């Protein structure tokens, strides 16, 4: 059977994760254990959630450059209000989701470039985070701490959580009617509108859902680190975009894969550990992540060219 370009696109991320994992196990066999796997992957959970949030935004042909600061902001809320005054904390987070929905509507109605709007918003979120936590501090809510340090039998939490995130987002984005409409907007906005749907409402809902996942990312991060800092997740903006692309997504055209996005996030996290095992200084890690991205994208490009040539023949 010949593999179609679409299937190949889905397979590459999984294959690259397995290869990388194999390399890590080869160099450090002790990582092949319950604790080892948990340590390797537990920072991947918040990254996976942020990647899923970014993927939602990218599925409607937009890009969220405020992802990192927004996750930092929600981490700060989680470590302060959510811990000390849960009701106020929840209210703040709900308001943040409402702001996300509003941004989505604004971008749609005024036909603004999402990059500009979210870049602007990144300063707003960053500022709010600094106002809440001028110095690193705060404390994770007990339940978040409990959740992120739980030890389920047989399979470590990091893996269980990643699978749950992948399954849930797959159901939402790839299987549900809502997901089809969202990806439809990415594919051909006009035909969705011509079928009588409200593109405005759909975009607002997509942004709100992205905001929701980004907040979960912030809470998960605080659960792991026990305290927060206004700059705790700045790297997430680029990591989340890289994760989506690595996982087989594209910037435009509504081609996204939730399972791929989670795998992409895991691969990027693992790449960091892999370099540490190779005793390469953390300074090189960003560069190495970039190199991985280039290799995977190069493979994809080569395959697309191959596919095109086969078709025209």
């Amino acid at each position, binding site marked *: 059977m010949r593999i179609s370009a679409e299937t190949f696109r889905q397979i590459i991320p999984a294959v690259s994760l397995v290869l990388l994992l194999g390399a890590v196990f080869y160099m450090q066999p002790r990582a092949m254990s319950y604790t080892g796997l948990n340590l390797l992957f537990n920072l991947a959970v918040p990254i996976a959630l942020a990647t899923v949030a970014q993927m939602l935004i990218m599925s409607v042909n937009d890009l969220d450059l405020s992802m990192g600061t927004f996750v930092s902001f929600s981490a700060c809320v989680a470590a302060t209000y959510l811990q000390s005054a849960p009701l106020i904390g929840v209210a703040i987070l709900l308001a943040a989701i409402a702001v996300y929905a509003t941004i989505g509507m604004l971008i749609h109605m005024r036909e603004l470039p999402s990059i500009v709007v979210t870049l602007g918003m990144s300063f707003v979120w960053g500022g709010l985070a600094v106002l809440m936590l001028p110095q690193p501090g705060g404390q994770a809510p007990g339940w978040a701490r409990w959740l992120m340090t739980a030890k389920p039998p047989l399979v470590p939490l990091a893996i269980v959580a990643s699978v749950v995130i992948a399954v849930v987002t797959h159901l939402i984005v790839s299987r549900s*009617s809502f997901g*089809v409409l969202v990806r439809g907007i990415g594919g051909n906005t006009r*035909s969705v509108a011509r079928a009588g749907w409200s593109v405005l409402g759909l975009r607002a809902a997509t942004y709100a859902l992205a905001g929701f996942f980004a907040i979960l990312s912030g809470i998960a991060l605080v659960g792991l680190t026990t305290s927060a800092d206004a700059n705790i997740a700045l790297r997430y903006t680029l990591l989340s975009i890289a994760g989506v692309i690595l996982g087989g997504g594209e910037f435009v055209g509504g081609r996204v894969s939730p399972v791929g996005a989670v795998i992409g996030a895991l691969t990027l996290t693992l790449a960091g550990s892999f370099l540490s095992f190779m005793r390469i200084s953390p300074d090189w890690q960003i560069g190495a992540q970039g190199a991985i991205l280039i290799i995977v994208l190069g493979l994809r490009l080569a395959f697309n060219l191959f596919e095109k040539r086969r078709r025209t023949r």
Partner: protein
Amino acid sequence: MADAMSAQTIVAARGIKIQFGAVKALDGADLEIRQGECIGLVGHNGAGKSTIVNVINGGLTPHAGDLVYGSGQGHGIALARQNGVRCVFQELSLCSNLTVGENARIMNRNLGGWNWRRRALALVRNKLDEIFPGHGIDCGSTVGDLSIAQRQMVEIAISFTDAETPARLVILDEPTSSLDSGLAAQLMAYVRRFAAGGGAVLLISHILGEILSTSNRIVVMKDGKVVADRPTSAFTTRSLVETMGSVVKDRQRSTRQHTGERRLSLPARKGEGLAFEAFGGEIVGFAGLGGHGQTQALLDLYLSENGNWLPNRSPVAFVAGDRGLNGIFPLWSILRNLSIASLGALSKRTLVDDGREAELGEYWKKKIEIRTPDTGNFILSLSGGNQQKVLFARALATSASIVLMDDPMRGVDVGTKQEVYEILRSEAASGRTFVWYSTEMDEIELCDRVYVFRDGVIVAELAGDEITEEKVLASSFAGGEH
């Protein structure tokens, strides 16, 4: 209002007027569609076919006139769909990143709920089997992986499905343009069955044989009005073409003969039809219905003279048709917009000579009368017609001996047009070659020689007194079946 209509009317449009800037797209058009009818809608470029379709399907709000659906008066996409009005657009409008079933979901609002995937798939599959038996399309595959013809088939099938309100009126805009003759025949047979079963179809096609054999009523549009609305039996291919054309009017033709040597040539497109050539001092027209390969031919001409990568001092200038998309630089001044193509000639040691640039601006401002106090003003401060003049000046200010024009006078007022025509004639007289794609008959009649395009191929060459609306129309519309 509603009770005055016969019970079986699906939609009635009366006295619809729509205006885009200076152009009257619809000027009091009437169209009533009843159950069991298959209506053929024909007309030349700019007659208002697409516009009236967009009014009926709710995409455009009429500036004047009534629109009455079965359920009452009003307009809007939602109301149109409630009344079972569906539309297959000329350009493919599926989401290519989704599967066939998922596209059916998007088109059918009420298909939600548990297990909608299976129902959507069954709906499309059954309809495809019904319309195109033996189609061989895998409904689980992504639309992007299908061929153009398959996509067209899927889109047509989805429009005829009835998951929500049953489809009552399906508008097909050039549905057979990418189907081969066998598939086209299957579709036309289905259209007849659908109409016999109480549905209605509005069929737009440039293949008159299709219209004559399938529809039972033909509506001919011209200049935004319905000029004929009669049973199909009252028409023949010839009378249909004659109805689409205008009354023969007197015009002064330049009986100029080109004197120059051959400047441009292009072999027959797709290996069919006629080859193209153009001589010095000639205005060559590209005619035919919009979107039949004229723009592509212009681009091929441009690329044949001008490399894709390395700039060279090409003898070719291009005047873009879509001003906003690929014509003007909206944030620049009039002068900058004008001089951009001739910067090489205006520069001294890679720096632009401001004095000479200003001189050039003043010269062209006077010569073609750009209505502005100062060419330093923003380009957007000009009216559309004057912006278009700047684009012409940009091309003419270069040393290019060949100017390619991609329907540049779309939406320009009559006065400006006359001025530009005058400039074109004088420039041609001084030896320049113009290749002019136009969707307007008046402009085609100004040309010395005209190539008529159909389905991406040059099907006719007309010169001198042969360039008449009737002849152009006859060549633009295929007479027989596919």
